[in-house]
């Protein structure tokens, strides 16, 4: 029996978590897992803290991140691994003065996603448990197929009006081959990160933080800093959002499929899941796309951590679940219900704060020099990385940034960078860890 005071504390801490996360998420490039890392370090000093309270805080921070990062991803162009796709259509909206619409649609998707994640886990837990069991045995080929699909489905984007046929062919292939280069380079980085110890061992729980920030966030920040001064037009603060039923259905279907792939299959994030989902539901149009991106991210982040709360089984997916299992493993149905209610309350509070922040930034974004915001984000990321992981963390960050910059300058897909986790996990699943470690001199 969980005491009533704990339930109240969970709710209160959930509201606090969503507010903190939303404010932190406005800093360009700052991933919620980096913040949670510091929370973990701090809380480990307090043995008396109820782990359920920490779990509530973690889950609500994910919701705050799903909502808050919509704003920074659209207005400051700093996506993480699960929102890289979202940036491009939203930039078009931003240029047209419709940034608020893009933020609103993505945020609305996140709210729907958080609610759906709760419903999925509460009412579909038995089915999900069976599905996870089934998928575990097939994870290797599923991940391999997903990565192959992501690469093979990329179409040469540059029309490359070269004069000669060879020139046209070469121009098309440069982009595709650079995609392959990014996959291989990210994979090698992942091999070093997974199979050797580059950072201080006592900070291993944040082992991927520097790489993720470098691969996804810092390149965008650098781009913002060094590209020509951005003249963001004045944004229109609409009272209504355009949309129709088919867009809504496509958005929900695409988001649920994409988010579920990210939630259920190890190492595949919502970004990769969405690549499939878009094809699966024949998604077209920017509005359904942005809505589904927000939805899938919420299912990916919130759903993955809620899988851990299914009683009787231990399904650990995603970084937040890893943080929670550092404290305890939930095993009762009442814990699941408390977490679900925390999610719903945090989502409601989060949505209210989200709209306030989004409106505020929308009104003032044309007066903000985003270069300063990006510079602030860069400084914060460097300080946090150095504090958490030391000089080796900065070294990893630099190499990851170089890899993450390739897609920007060669116009290839940024989601290729996710190979930093998919390739080492595939190697591990194939039982080739030792062979690969020997090959790379780290055995």
């Amino acid at each position, binding site marked *: 029996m969980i005491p009533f005071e704990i339930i109240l504390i969970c709710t209160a801490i959930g509201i606090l978590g969503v507010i903190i996360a939303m404010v932190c998420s406005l800093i360009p490039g700052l991933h919620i897992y980096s913040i949670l890392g510091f929370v*973990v*370090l701090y809380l*480990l000093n307090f043995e008396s803290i109820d782990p359920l309270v920490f779990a509530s805080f973690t889950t609500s921070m994910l919701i705050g991140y799903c909502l808050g990062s919509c704003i920074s991803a659209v207005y400051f162009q700093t996506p993480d691994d699960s929102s890289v796709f979202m940036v491009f259509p939203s930039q078009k909206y931003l240029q047209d003065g419709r940034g608020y619409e893009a933020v609103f649609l993505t945020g609305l998707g996140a709210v729907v996603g958080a609610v759906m994640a709760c419903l999925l886990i509460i009412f579909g837990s038995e089915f999900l448990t069976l599905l996870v069991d089934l998928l575990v045995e097939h994870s290797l080929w599923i991940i391999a197929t997903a990565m192959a699909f992501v690469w093979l489905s990329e179409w040469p*984007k*540059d*029309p*490359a*009006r070269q004069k000669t046929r060879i020139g046209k062919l070469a*121009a098309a292939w440069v982009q595709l081959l650079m995609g392959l*280069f990014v996959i291989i*380079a990210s994979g*090698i*980085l992942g091999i*070093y990160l*997974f*199979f*050797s*110890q*580059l950072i201080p*061992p*006592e*900070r*291993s*729980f944040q*082992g991927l933080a520097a790489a993720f920030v470098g691969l996804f966030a810092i390149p965008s920040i650098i781009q913002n800093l060094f*590209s*020509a001064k951005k*003249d963001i037009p004045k944004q229109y603060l609409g009272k209504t959002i355009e949309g129709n039923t088919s867009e809504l259905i496509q958005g929900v279907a695409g988001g649920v499929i994409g988010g579920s792939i990210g939630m259920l299959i190890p190492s595949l994030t919502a970004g990769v899941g969405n690549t499939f989902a878009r094809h699966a539901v024949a998604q077209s149009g920017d509005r359904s796309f942005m809505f589904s991106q927000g939805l899938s991210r919420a299912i990916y982040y919130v759903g993955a951590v809620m899988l851990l709360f299914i009683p009787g089984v*231990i399904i*650990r997916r995603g970084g937040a679940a*890893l943080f929670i*299992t*550092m*404290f*305890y*493993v939930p095993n009762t149905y009442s814990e699941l219900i408390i977490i679900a209610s925390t999610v719903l309350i945090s989502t409601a509070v989060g949505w209210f704060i989200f709209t306030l922040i989004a409106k505020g930034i929308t009104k003032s974004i044309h007066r903000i020099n985003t270069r300063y915001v990006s510079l602030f984000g860069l400084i914060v990321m460097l300080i946090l990385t150095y504090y958490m992981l030391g000089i*080796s963390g900065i*070294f*990893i960050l*630099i*190499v990851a940034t*170089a*890899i993450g*910059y*390739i897609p920007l*300058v*060669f*116009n290839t897909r940024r989601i290729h960078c996710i190979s930093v986790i998919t390739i080492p996990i595939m190697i*591990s699943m194939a*039982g080739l*860890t*030792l062979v690969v*470690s020997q090959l*790379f*001199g*780290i*055995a």
Partner: protein
Amino acid sequence: MVIKKEDIKEKTKPGFCPNCGAYVGAFYSCPWCRSKMPHGTRLRIIQYVSIFAVIFGLVGLGIYAAIDPAPFVNIGDIGPTYSNGTVTIKGHVTNIDYRVANDESWKTLIFTVTDNTGSIDVKAYTETTDEMIEDKNTPAIGDDCTVRGSIYIRGDELYLLLDSSNYYKYQRPAALVTNATELFNLYNATPSEYLGIRVNVTGEVTKVGSSYFELDNVTRVFFPEYVRAFAPEVTISVYEEDIVEVIGFTELYYDTLEILPGSMYDIKILIQGGETIE
């Protein structure tokens, strides 16, 4: 059509075609009027620099990783923040547990390694366990060992996951050569000196059970499931009055002195049914 740079700055914003004004973004040429976009040398330089930075960065990271891919840590220092870390521990094996499914579809070997600062369980799942058995690289209680693996934490459960047989290296202490009766006498004289040591004992089998036999009526030899599993090709049938040689680790079974071999390779029948076994 090639547009000169000076014309472009005056007419269009970056990303827009200087000729027709269409939005072109990062493409090299305008899809509408085929004009070359003025990315110029700077983008080309950034592209080359990025590629070189990736290559040199990864080489540097590789060199750094190879220096100490799995640093040594004291077992007592390992805590929740070590989760997913790749580390090496040194200590001695103090306990072994072996779990196998009825249909042998999975097996798990768990052995405890202890150093001066604490203890940790080391887990090896089916593939690694099979590899260890095949390599005859299985742990035995009392072994001094070095283990490299990844730290896993699930609530109160904290263990080191062993990924390959190659990452388990052991040294077995030299065995005290004696016979069962003499060992028993030595133990009775100074119990603390003769418990927890490796011995090589010869004696006559006086009693046989399902997973043990007694030597000279004074010392028990215990061979649990894992001892048999670690030597799958060895089948030994021990009968009373056989003379056997056993290498193992001494411990106490209630009040009886017990020898625990590392595997069935450590049990050798010297004389069976009056005949010397080669």
